[in-house]
């Protein structure tokens, strides 16, 4: 069955700390992977996506993610978080004509 697993439901960090959010997927076809972010009171926005080529993809606001095929993973990283990164982050894989989301990770960054 197609699924996406996000390891941490809640993460609390101080500003300038490094961030890594785990994402593992289960899907047998060609993989297209996405990270979305939802800031408080706002709609879901695309952070970055992977569909082919370099497995290290860079997104907006200093985020990056690495696709590791052997581990079925697509972890999101940022070297130094800011208070404004407080949001909920969703990993997703494109299944057969539909996007399959993980449960999300709520990130709180303290000044």
């Amino acid at each position, binding site marked *: 069955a197609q699924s996406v697993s996000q390891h941490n439901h809640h993460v609390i960090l101080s500003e300038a700390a490094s961030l890594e959010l785990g994402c593992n997927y289960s899907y047998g076809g*060609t993989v297209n992977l996405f990270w979305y972010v939802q800031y408080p009171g706002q*709609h*879901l926005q695309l952070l970055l*996506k992977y569909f082919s080529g370099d497995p290290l993809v860079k997104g907006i606001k200093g985020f990056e993610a690495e696709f590791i095929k052997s581990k079925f993973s697509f972890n999101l990283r940022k070297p130094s978080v800011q208070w404004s990164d407080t949001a909920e982050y969703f990993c997703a894989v494109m299944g057969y*004509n*539909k*996007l399959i989301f993980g*449960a999300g990770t709520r990130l709180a960054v303290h000044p």
Partner: protein
Amino acid sequence: EADIYQTPRYLVIGTGKKITLECSQTMGHDKMYWYQQDPGMELHLIHYSYGVNSTEKGDLSSESTVSRIRTEHFPLTLESARPSHTSQYLCASKAGGNYQPQHFGDGTRLSIL
């Protein structure tokens, strides 16, 4: 920035009422989607459409129905709302190709009393 609009943003209404949640996009996207999201939970696909006159049920069983008479419009209807329908409903659209991202609206928070 994506142009996809959902109305209303918030709705509190009594049991038994008929409700229509509106979703419109101005990007000419053929594919449109409705998701249901409860707090702290993943998004669940409840309906999708590949184009005009095309509608399909998603993974999560829903008592709602949808229609797609125009490309830009994908309304969701609950004929008789119940407290179990209380949730957030997100609409999304995308261009063709699996690598194209979905663009989301702001969502409708629905509370059924």
